[in-house]
């Protein structure tokens, strides 16, 4: 099996570092507020006048706030495998950032529960002629 070209399905939202991938967010230098995805026009804290936020890597580990397993193929623009396979999505709390970030769940779902520790991985979203389209996912920490 040959290794195929990895294509980040969205630009600038995560690093492709194999061992220690990171989500890329923003942080307000004035008030400490974090932002994900990294697309703020200004600091989202209404009491804060800052307009220039700095790029930061977010925590790689968090705990599951909630999750679900989807048993039906979503509509486009989701690229569903054929035959369709159920997939899990988790809402994960990051302690330092004090925020929740969504992601699909990679790997086996054993141990997936509210409060379970998870860590960030980069995993296949779908494949096509262009290569292996990848995205960040959460994986139950061992």
């Amino acid at each position, binding site marked *: 099996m040959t290794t195929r070209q990895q294509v980040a399905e969205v630009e600038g939202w995560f690093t492709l570092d194999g061992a220690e991938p990171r989500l890329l967010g923003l942080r307000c230098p004035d008030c400490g507020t974090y932002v994900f*995805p990294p697309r703020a026009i200004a600091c989202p804290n209404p009491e804060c006048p800052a307009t220039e936020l700095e790029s930061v890597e977010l925590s790689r580990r968090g705990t599951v706030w909630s999750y679900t397993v989807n048993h039906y193929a979503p509509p486009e623009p989701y690229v569903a495998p054929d035959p369709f396979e159920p997939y899990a999505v988790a809402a994960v709390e990051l302690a330092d950032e004090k925020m929740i970030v969504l992601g699909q769940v990679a790997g086996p779902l054993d141990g997936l529960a509210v409060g379970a520790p998870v860590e960030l991985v980069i995993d296949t979203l779908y494949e096509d002629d262009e290569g292996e389209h990848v995205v960040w996912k959460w994986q139950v920490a061992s």
Partner: protein
Amino acid sequence: MSRQGPSGQASGLARRHSPGSLALALGSGGQVAVLGVGMHPWGKWGANFAEYGVVAARAALDDAGVSWSEVQFVAGGETVRNGYPGYVAGSTIAQALGWNGAQVSTSYGACASGSMAIDVARARILAGLCDVALVVGADTTPKGFLAPTKGERGDDPDWLRFRLLGATNPTYFAFYARRRMELFGATPEDFALVKVKNARHGLANPMARYRKEVTVEEVLESPIVSDPLHLLDICATSDGAAALVLTSLEFARRRGIADPVRVAGVAVVTPSFPNAVIDMPNFATDSAAAGGAAAAGGTPGRLSFRDSIARAAYEQAGVGPEDVDVAEVYDLSTALELDWYENIGLCAPGEAEKLLRDGVTTLGGRVPVNPSGGLACFGEAVPAQAIAQVCELTWQLRGSASGRQVERARVGVTANQGLFGHGSSVVLTR
């Protein structure tokens, strides 16, 4: 004495930071009359949305005993999935009724669009800019999941959440359902019981699309869509339309209606930072890192977005949850109805399942919720649904909700939440 407009004592009280005093300042002057209500039955009819809107508008005008040429203001709730005509619901339906020179508006706030249109019409009447307003919402919906419009749109968060996560609407509903199970011991049977209750409520409602009893077993045996939610836990999408004729209390009096159902509060509110609960269509919540004590997922003592919605409408109306006789809330999923019990103050967090199991929210109970049958029996018709909630409460407060009447209902509340930070709640009194 001449009218003061916004100056003088009253406006000083109408500050956002002391909304409670608003109702005291305005008294019944802050109210408008619901003189007429009308709907087009929900279903899958295959016609243009304007056709449904005209039927609902004419029904509301007939109900009010008001002619179309008396209408001075048209407030439309907009739909966005059907090409241009939907975008301009107000003027499209005004044209279909026949141009009468009225002022017009069209409002968009996702599922809160209908309440936004009510809010716009109410303000115009309270400002003395008109006496008679027609509020109308109508929709023709596609089959299946609500999906973003076509094309490659990497700038659009609503497109990206489908592309990158497959995060459908039921995905978010399932997050909330799972939280209830985890925090409060809710069970899939509890969720199913909401469907059973609402299906029974809707049996006698001629406007409902689904009029058929459902058992707990049928819900639990229906396919799982987004675990723990089954197909029968999640509402469908429908065609439908609803309309209101809102007037000043003085106009109602002149028509011999001294005691109309009144709109006493309308909240179409955005969240307060940091919004710590994940909402459609977002990838993440706000960060509470700047707030010191605040934690992700919500902080005890701080009002969540969903808690703030009905609260704002109650404060305008000068009533509290303890005064509520009947409620219509957005049961996009069965589990979400339970969240709303708590969000609108019918019980403390974690007590919704007990309220449901004890029959408190069933017809005959202390405070029936979704006597219309709710979204469970209607399926959602986005710009019409929040208006339909007000139609139902109007019938309830008039005592004319045949076959599903809540006894002696005097105060009703609606609640819903639309994408992109649109909370909405309407308080009706009589």
